[in-house]
């Protein structure tokens, strides 16, 4: 994996330009999820607002524990309030407020208009049911078709996700297929009722690296062909570089930066985004780059640090970062303007970030110089010249 050119996940081509902005399909507004546990309140998702337009691919990127999975499930309604779970904010899908629906009403939308793909295809298929039955189940539930028609559709779906011998596959059980083939089956299940929105939660993380690229390309191809919107959740920035229109970076349950994919890669403003980029092999450039590890761990979501949640791990952290949490702000027109009140649908090129010392700004250069000089950040994390060579 040292040779960037051979990395099958690396983006081969320049980032595609976003398609003409459609209407907002999904609007998450101030989504908050807290789990009350014996040890305290886990603030899994804090005040996340996002928009996803028709036909758009939005990538949600973050480390494990950043709240991206919980956010996805909350968007769908799979995580709901009650029994120690506290939820807030609204999720509007195609004009309907999902958070106001009953579970019966939600289940009419699930599978039909919003579909989900999970991380591990080894566990996301029922081991004792035939592949065919697992696909037709969804079709029979949401469409008025006969069993024979549903089976025909299942075979077509399997063919469209690139499985050979679909007529035989529908009679097989999950354990008879490889991981990559199983993930193709779960994609077929997700697409069985032509959903308008596909939520893919780390769809390739559990797969072999070579298979990962195939599955991602398949998803990108299907998304474009069917005109679906897709929320692609991943921890791997390489995965989304050529396959998303916008990226939202999550950290400690919050959005810390969001921008069109090309803008984000060209001009990351949040040090965490920059760190994520340095933690994976670059697409172009020298073959043997030393990858940078992000020091420390994701924050404890029960007792998150005061101030900026990334400050304990940030090489540029200053005193202000430790005490005062930066709001989500617009990068344009001026980087240090007021907290953002704009929404991405109003401005598709919107670039928002959450940092007092945005990467590349004069304040950032000063902060960097100060930390290098004293050999540590304001939080006490050791800082060397090498670490901040960007």
């Amino acid at each position, binding site marked *: 994996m040292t040779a960037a050119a051979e990395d099958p996940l690396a983006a081969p081509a320049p980032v595609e330009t976003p398609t003409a902005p459609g209407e907002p399909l999904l609007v998450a507004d101030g989504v908050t999820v807290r789990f009350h546990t014996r040890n305290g309140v886990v603030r899994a998702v804090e005040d996340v607002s996002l928009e996803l337009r028709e036909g758009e691919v939005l990538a949600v990127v973050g480390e494990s524990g950043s709240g991206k999975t919980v956010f996805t499930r909350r968007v769908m309604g799979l995580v709901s309030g009650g029994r120690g779970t506290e939820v807030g904010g609204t999720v509007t899908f195609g004009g309907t407020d999902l958070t106001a629906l009953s579970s019966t009403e939600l289940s009419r939308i*699930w599978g039909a208009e*919003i579909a989900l793909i*999970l*991380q591990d295809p080894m566990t996301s298929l029922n*081991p004792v049911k035939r592949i065919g039955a697992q696909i037709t189940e*969804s079709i029979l*539930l949401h469409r008025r078709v006969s069993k024979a028609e549903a089976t025909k559709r299942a075979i077509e779906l399997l063919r469209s996700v690139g499985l050979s011998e679909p007529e*035989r596959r529908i009679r097989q059980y999950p*354990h008879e297929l490889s991981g990559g083939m199983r993930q193709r089956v779960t994609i077929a299940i997700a697409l069985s009722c032509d959903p308008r929105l596909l939520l893919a939660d780390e769809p390739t993380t559990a797969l072999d690296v070579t298979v990962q690229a195939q599955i991602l390309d398949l998803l990108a191809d299907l998304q474009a062909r069917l005109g679906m919107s897709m929320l692609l959740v991943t921890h791997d920035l390489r995965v989304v570089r050529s396959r998303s229109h916008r990226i939202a970076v999550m950290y400690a349950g919050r959005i810390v930066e969001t921008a069109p994919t090309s803008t984000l890669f060209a001009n990351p403003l949040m040090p965490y985004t920059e760190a994520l980029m340095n933690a994976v092999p670059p697409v172009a450039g020298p073959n043997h780059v030393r990858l940078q590890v992000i020091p420390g761990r994701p924050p404890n979501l029960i007792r998150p640090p005061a101030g900026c949640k990334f400050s304990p791990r940030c090489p540029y952290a200053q005193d202000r970062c430790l005490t005062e949490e930066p709001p989500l702000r617009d990068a344009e027109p001026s980087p240090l303007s007021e907290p953002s009140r704009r929404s991405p649908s109003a401005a598709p090129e919107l670039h928002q970030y959450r940092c007092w010392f945005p990467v590349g700004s004069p304040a950032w250069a000063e902060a960097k110089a100060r930390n290098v000089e004293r050999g540590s950040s304001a939080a006490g994390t050791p800082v060397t010249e090498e670490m901040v060579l960007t």
Partner: protein
Amino acid sequence: MTDTMPVGATGAPPAPPAAPTGAAGPRRPGRHRHTARYVRARLTHLLLVLLAVTFLSFVVVDLLPGDAAVVVAGENATPEQVQAVRETLQLDRPLLIRYVDWLGGVLTGDLGSSFRTGQPVLEALGERIPVSLQLAVVAQLLALVIAVPLAVYSAYRPGRLLDRTTMTLGFAGAAMPQFVLGMVLIVAFAGGFSSILPATGYTSFFEDPLANLRSIILPCVTLMVAEAAVYRQLLRSDMISTLQEDFILMARSKGLRPRAILLRHALRPSSFSLITLSGVNLGRLIGGTVIVETLFAIPGLGQLIVQAVFNRDYMILQGALLFVAVAYVVINMLIDLLYLVLDPRVRRDV
């Protein structure tokens, strides 16, 4: 003494092998051959088990203090009479010879006759087996019919009222000795408070179906309570862990309603240990249930065996043990075959 753990119950399902590549072609025809080979292996196994069980019981009964000839001849018999009985019953011959002799009889369908009554063993068994079989099967079915819905709902809403209530009641039922429970039931339904059911006795189904059902209700309930409690507990916890699985989340995200998820997706993968246990229990119950049979005066296998031991009635005892062993092994074989139906992952490994 016998390997009663079905292949599927030995822990985690076998790791799925690499899938055949697209060009590998169908491989179905092997399945029936696999099953046939499995049944053959199991039957060979059964033979060994039967030899071991019957020989051991021969030895153990012989080692029991007390002389069968004395018991059979009666307390006041003279030594000559005892000797005559001993010769008639051929008890003077060495153990191994008697065993081989008995075995030869079994192979020709002759299980001998009772030492005491002279009744052919086959006939005695023929009277008792249907009774024990009916009791065992009805009690098992009752336990499952009651436990499964309670377990499924308790797993769906753990910690709620139904879960807590049935758990408490179940513990109480399981903790109560069978004879106490039986007596409570008799007092409640066949005596003290009401007498809607007969307290004791057994009527054959072919004689009077209604009376038969009435006569087995109390014994079956007595047998069933502790098992239903255990089944509920077992299935509930297996179900709860199945409900954590990703494929359940997938099923939810398809828009399936809770009832379909529980019954169509979660129940079958959760039922393997329940099936194993109920197979073991069924085998055990068929062998007779002395306490319940005695309490309700039911002429089952359990009583027959106990009496045979007290009477040193070797022939009856041997015949009954032979049947119990066969029943036990056959039932567990059937359970294993059931696994092949329920869990496709096991099929390739048999």
